[in-house]
C-alpha cells in the first residue's frame, strides 16, 4: 500500500548550517507517527519542507504516491497536507466559525466574483452545518461566534486543528500542539485528537516535546537530532533507547 506521506532524503541548510540531513520518513494511511528531537533539531524546518514553505535543497516529498516536491504550498495543502503551527497562526478579525468556513470554501474551490456580487458568497446553511459538525467534535461549538482574539491559547490550537480538518487532509502535521497548554488541556487535546482521527482516518505526524503525549498517542516515532534521524521504530522502544536518552531526554532531564 502506498504510504500517505513519504519524504525521501530531504536536505535543507541555512547559509551553510545544515538543518536537515537526508531525512527519510514514511507515514502510512491512518497511522499516528511521532517526530521528536531536542530544540533546534530541525522538526519545524522539516514540516516547512514537507508543505513547501521552505524550498528543499534536495530530496523528494510524496503524497499518496504522488511527487509534490515542486508544488507550491497551497497546491500541496489541497492535495491533502493539513497543518497546525508551533507559533499559533490564526486570522485576526474573524470568528471561530469563520476560520473553518474559509477553509471549507477554499476546499470547494468556490470563489467566483459574480457569486460574491449577487450575494451568493455569504455563508450557506450546509457549509455552516459542516463547520458546526467539526466544531462540535472539537468541543468548540459554544465558541463558534466568538472573535478569535477572545480565545485562550488552548482553544486557539483547537481552532487551528479544526481549520486544518476542514481541508479534509490525508495527513495532518501537528507542530507542538501542547506547547503553552497545561496538563489538563493537553490531555483533553490528545483525547479529542484521538477521537477525531479514529473517526476520520487521516494520518498524523506529531511533533511534540511532551513525552507522555507522544508515548500514549503515537504508535511509531522518529527521532531527529541536529538534522539527522538517529532512531526510528515503535514509540515505546524508541523512547527507551539509549540514543534518545543521551540526545534528547538526557539533556532535558526528564524523569523516566
Amino acid at each position, binding site marked *: 500500500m502506498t504510504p500517505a506521506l513519504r519524504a525521501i532524503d530531504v536536505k535543507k541548510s541555512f547559509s551553510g548550517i545544515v538543518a536537515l540531513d537526508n531525512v527519510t520518513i514514511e507515514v502510512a494511511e491512518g497511522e499516528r507517527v511521532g517526530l521528536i528531537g531536542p530544540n533546534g533539531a530541525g522538526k519545524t524546518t522539516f514540516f516547512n519542507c514537507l508543505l513547501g514553505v521552505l524550498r528543499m535543497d534536495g530530496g523528494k516529498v510524496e503524497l499518496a504516491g504522488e511527487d509534490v516536491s515542486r508544488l507550491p504550498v497551497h497546491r500541496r495543502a489541497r492535495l491533502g497536507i493539513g497543518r497546525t503551527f508551533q507559533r499559533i497562526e490564526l486570522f485576526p478579525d474573524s470568528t471561530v466559525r469563520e476560520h473553518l468556513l*474559509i*477553509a471549507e470554501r477554499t476546499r470547494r474551490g468556490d470563489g467566483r466574483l459574480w457569486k*460574491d456580487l449577487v450575494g451568493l458568497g455569504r455563508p450557506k446553511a450546509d457549509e455552516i452545518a459542516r463547520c458546526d459538525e467539526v466544531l462540535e467534535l472539537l468541543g468548540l461549538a459554544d465558541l463558534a461566534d466568538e472573535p478569535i482574539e477572545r480565545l485562550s491559547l488552548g482553544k486557539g490550537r483547537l481552532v487551528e486543528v479544526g*481549520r486544518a480538518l476542514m481541508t479534509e487532509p490525508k495527513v495532518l502535521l501537528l507542530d507542538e500542539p501542547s506547547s503553552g497548554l497545561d496538563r489538563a488541556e493537553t490531555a483533553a487535546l490528545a483525547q479529542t485528537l484521538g477521537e477525531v482521527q479514529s473517526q476520520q482516518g487521516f494520518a498524523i505526524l506529531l511533533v511534540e516535546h511532551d513525552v507522555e503525549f507522544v508515548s500514549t498517542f503515537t504508535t511509531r516515532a522518529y527521532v531527529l537530532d541536529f538534522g539527522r534521524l538517529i532512531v526510528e521504530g515503535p514509540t515505546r522502544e524508541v523512547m527507551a533507547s539509549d540514543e534518545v536518552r543521551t540526545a534528547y531526554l538526557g539533556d532535558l532531564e526528564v524523569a523516566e
Partner: protein
Amino acid sequence: MLLAASAGEDVFRAILQGTPPGAVFALIALGFVLTYKTSGVFNLAFGAQAYISAAMFFTARVEWGWGIVPSVVLSVFLLAPLLGLVLERLIFRHLRTASAVSKLVVTIGLSVALPNLFDLVVGFQPVAGRTPVGIVADGADVFYDPFGTYAFSRNELMSIGVAVVGMALLAALFRFSAIGLAMRAVVESPRMTELNGIRADRISAFAWALSSVFAGLAGVLIAPRFNTLVAPDFFNLVVVAIAAAAIGRLVSLPRALAGGLGLGIFIALFDTFLPRWSDDLTWLQPFQDNLTPSMPFVVLFGVLVLWPSIRRARDAGDPLAGVDPPPPSLVAASRSARLTLATRLFGVAFLGVAGFVLFVRGDAVWLFLVTQAVVLATIYLSITVLTGFAGQISLCQGSFAAIGAFTVYQLANRYDASVLVATLAGGAIAAGVGALLSLPVRRLGGIWVAIATLAFAFFFDAVMVKFSWVGGGTLFQGTRVPRPTLGPWDFADDKAFLVLALVVFVLVSLAVIQIREGTIGRTLRALRGSELAAESIGISPARARLAAFSISAFIAGIGGGMLAMHQENVNYGNNFAPFAALFWLVLVVSLGARTVEGAAQAGAAFSLFDAVILRGALFGWILRSPERIPGIFPISPKWRFVLFGLSCIQFARHPEGLVEHGKRRAMLRAETRLARKRPPASPPDPVAEAPVRTEEPVG
C-alpha cells in the same frame, strides 16, 4: 551593448555627464539605506527631507540674502539633522516593533505633511520659474572642460566634490569612531548587535540625523536642476534613491553607492544613444523623450521583478520588523443591533438633510465640491479593497484612475462612443492592467508591493501619459471629456450629474460590501491575517492578489472616468499624478481603509475640508452670517496636507483608521452606559482567559 569603436568617445562623454547626478543619487541612496538598515524604516519621506533643506537654503540665500556658508550651515547642518532627530525621537522610536508596512505608511504620510508644514512655518512659497540657486556662485554659468569632451558646470563639479567628501567622511566615521563602528555592526547584522547589548536607540537616532544630513546635502545639490522648488520633484528623487539602493538589495552601503553612480551614468548613456537608434528605428521615437527621465523607475521595476534574490528573500526587506499587531475587528461586527440601527438612522437623517439643503439652496460651487467628494469616494473604495481588505499598499491607484479617465477621453473623442460605456471600458482596461501588474509583484508582498506600484506609477506618469493614444499628447488642456446623456436625462446639468455620481457610488459601495462578506473578502482577510496559515489551507496568494488588484483597478478606473466627466477634462497633472494620488492613500488610511464610511469620509475630507473648515464656512454657518467669520479664517489649505499626513502616524497603532477607532471608543462608552442601566444579562465571559496572541518562548 552594441557599440561601434567610434562610439568610445561618446561613451566617455556620457560617463562624465552622468557622474554629477550619479554622485547625488549615490548620496541619497546611502542616506536611504542608513535608516532602512538601522531602524527598519523604508523612508519614503526622504525626498521631503531633501526638499526642506533645499527650500531652507533657498529662503536663507535668496529671500533673506544670507551668504552661502551660513545658508548651508543652517539648512544642511542644523535643520536637517534636527529634523532627523525629531522624526526618530517622536515617531519612529515608538514604532520599532511595528510592521514594515505600517512604518512605510507613516513615511508616506510624512512625505505629504512635511513639505507643507515647512512652507507654513517658514512662509515659503514656491514661485514658478524662480530657479533654485546652487551652493557656488555662478554655479550654472561657469564651465570647465578638463577632458575636452564634456564641460562641467560649477554646480556639477560641486556635486561631485561634496559627494566624494561626504562619502569619505562616512567611510572614516565607520572605520574610526566608536559610534560608527557600532552603526556598521547594526547595518551588517541588527540581530547580532542587539545580542551584544549595543544601545540601539542611540544608534538609530544618530543614523537618522546622519541620513537627514545626506538628504539635505542631496537636496541642496540637486535643486538647481529643477526649474522651480516644488515638493513632488523631490519625491521623485526618493524613487531614484530606491532604485539605486535596490541594486544593492537595500542592505549594502557600497553597493548602494555604486548603484547611484551607475544609475546616473546609465541615464546619460541612454540620453546619448537612444536618439541615434531611434533615427533608424521609428517605433523607438516616442520612447526617446519619455524613457530617459523614467529610467530610474524602469530600473527599479526591473530590479524588483527580475532580481531573484529579492523575489525569494521576502524577509530581507524587513530586518527589524516585529510581529504584526493583530488588527482589531470592525466595530460593526461586534456592536449591538440597537446601536447599529441608531447610528444608521442618524447617518441617513444627516445625509438626507444635507442633501436636501444642497439641492434646494446649494450654489454651483457647493454642488461642484460635493459631487467631487462623491466621485473621489468612489475612487477611494478601490483603496478600501486593496489596502483595507487585502492589506496591500498600492501607490499607483492614481494611474489606475487615470487609465479610466484617459479611456473615456480617447473613446469619446476618437470614436464618439457613449461616455458611460467608455467608463465601463476604462474600468475594464484598468482591471486588465491591474491584473498584469499583480503578476510580477504577487510573490513579493509587504513593502515590495508598495515599491513596485510606486515604480509603475512613475513609469506611467513619465512614459505612458505622453503617448498620443493615452494622454493625447497635449497635456493639461487638450483632454476634454463630455458629460454623458442617458435616454431622457442629460447629465450636463450639475444636479443631475450629482445624482449619477451618487448612484455610481452606491452601486460600487454595495459591490464592495458584498465582496467583503463573500468568498473573495474572506480569502483576502485570511491572507492579510496570516499568509502562512492561509496558504496551508489551500489559498493561493497569487490568485487572491490578482483578484484584489483587478477589482481595485476596475473601481479606480470607473471612478477616474467619473472624475474626468465631472470636471469635463482629465486634468491628469492635478488629479492623477503620483504625488497627488499619494494624498489619496494618506486620507483613506488615516480615516478608515476598511469601511465604505471611511472612503466616503476621505472623499469628503479631500474636497470639503478646505471649504468647510479651513475657509471658515462652517463658522459662518453657525454664526448665521458670512461676515462674522472670525479673522483667523481663511486658514491656509496646506494645513489639510499637514493634518492628514500627520494623522497617518497613528496607522501603526490603529490600522483600522481614525473613523473606526473613534467609533469603537464611542461604542464602548455607549454600551457601558446602556449596560449600567440594565442588570448584566450574562456573567462575564469565561472564555477570555488568556489572549491567543501571546508570544511563546521560542523552542
